[in-house]
């Protein structure tokens, strides 16, 4: 008599590897990179070794160059993000709940949204001068739109049942906004914050490359002109860490503010 055992046909889709695999992969890539550089196959002018970049980074931190640039960049991005986020949040909330504001403001917002904001930098420099204000404004502009749009659609998507619950208990407008609309829209608003964080970083670097003598973007451009590639790459690494930090900050904030939101 023949017999066939039933196989686990789903095993391909069920397979899970442990987390340390990611670290091993990263290490392998870095090791390969280092090996290629040391073999002399590529000129260090075009591709410095990871260890060389790290050494450059340590030097730049030690002589205060990174600190100065980072301080200038952080100020710009913090000020721009705060201003843009506040304006976007208020615009989204009002346009999402008031039919008048919706009709009046949203077509304008929609028309301006697709403009690549960096194209406006020459205009802002003309209006506001080459100083900090034009750079902060361009970041605020870039942050404003995704946050306004996401807040708007988050507010628009509030479950009408919950509004009816609030109305049936005779809740006032402010109570309903504070205790129903805002909490409901919060996950969507945070998604807007994340998009805005990426935009802000992009605009920061672009603006600093066009019109700044300090800041991480200016630093990268400076060393590019001088063809000091390891210092250039060190600047890129600082930017990537800045992006990660931003992301981490938003994640922590989101966890605190939205404890009920299931992943």
């Amino acid at each position, binding site marked *: 008599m023949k017999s066939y055992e039933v196989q686990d046909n789903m095993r391909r889709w069920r397979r899970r590897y442990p987390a340390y695999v990611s670290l091993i992969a990263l290490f392998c890539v870095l090791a390969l990179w280092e090996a290629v550089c040391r073999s002399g196959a590529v000129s260090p002018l075009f591709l410095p070794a990871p260890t060389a970049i790290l050494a450059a980074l340590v030097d730049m931190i030690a002589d205060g160059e990174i600190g100065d640039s980072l301080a200038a960049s952080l100020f710009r991005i913090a000020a721009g993000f705060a201003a843009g986020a506040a304006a976007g949040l208020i615009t989204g909330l009002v346009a999402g709940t008031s039919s008048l504001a919706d009709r009046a403001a949203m077509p304008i917002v929609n028309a301006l949204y697709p403009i690549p904001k960096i194209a406006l930098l020459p205009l802002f420099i003309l209006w506001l001068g080459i100083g900090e204000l034009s750079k902060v404004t361009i970041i605020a502009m870039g942050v404003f739109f995704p946050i306004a749009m996401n807040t708007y659609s988050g507010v628009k998507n509030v479950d009408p049942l919950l509004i009816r*619950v609030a109305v049936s*208990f005779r*809740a006032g407008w402010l109570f309903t906004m504070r205790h129903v609309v805002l909490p409901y829209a919060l996950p969507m608003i945070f998604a807007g914050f994340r998009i805005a964080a990426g935009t802000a970083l992009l605009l920061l670097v672009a603006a600093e490359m066009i019109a700044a003598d300090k800041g991480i973007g200016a630093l990268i451009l400076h060393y590019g002109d001088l063809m000091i590639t390891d210092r250039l790459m060190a600047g890129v690494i600082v930017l990537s860490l800045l992006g990660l930090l931003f992301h981490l900050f938003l994640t922590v904030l989101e966890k605190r503010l939205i404890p009920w939101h299931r992943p």
Partner: protein
Amino acid sequence: MQLVIDHICQSFPAGGGRVLPVLEDISLTLREEEFVALVGPSGCGKSTLLNLCAGLLPPVSGSIRFTGDDLTAELRVSIVFQETGLMPWRNVYDNIAFGLEAGHLLPPAERDERIRHYIRLTGLSGFEKAYPHQLSGGMRQRVGIARALAVRPDLLLMDEPFSALDAQTRLLMQEELVSLWEKTRLTTLYVTHNIREAVMLADRVVLLSRRPGRVKDILEIRIPRAERALPEHSAEIAGLESRIWSHISRDAREAMTEVQP
């Protein structure tokens, strides 16, 4: 206090300038401490009638009013919704507090006692800190009921509160509602499409026809609520059920085969 539903007609725009009549000339009076069940096939406008009573929708014609000698200035109407409508960011305790906070009903110091009372009454003790997504459907609806009761309403509206529950939970919740209602004796309008549920719970069952909804028949049920599950009444209960079903079955069949416009 009585709730008088007086010649209510309701229709909705159906596109192309046409109107879809939903309710036609509904008149009905709910007496004090009366439990009335509204039964009908889907599309009979029973939920619409409930929304009208709650002031969530203005009637096209007719009126709904409270009458009575001892009327206070502001009557409170609570609704228990089919989908519960709990706030996912509030735990059980805070969800029950929602109605009291929204209507600024009690000094905060006295709220706690009120909320704890209804937590005990609805069997939610020990679940105060749980969030809605952590609870079963039956427990969630208990929270919905506790929230509705906590404001001490003059009228309780229930919109198919158990129809999203599985059959066993539903039976348990019906039994709980009977004993809860005997303790509170709130004037209640209960919408359901479940015939048995209506017969087990209500003092009167109002049958609505299908679109436009009209009152087809009203049945008084005189068996005491607590005894309706007993075997000696089973023949009478079954008779009531089949009488309702004979009224509704043709409409229900039509509703089932209708293609949505």
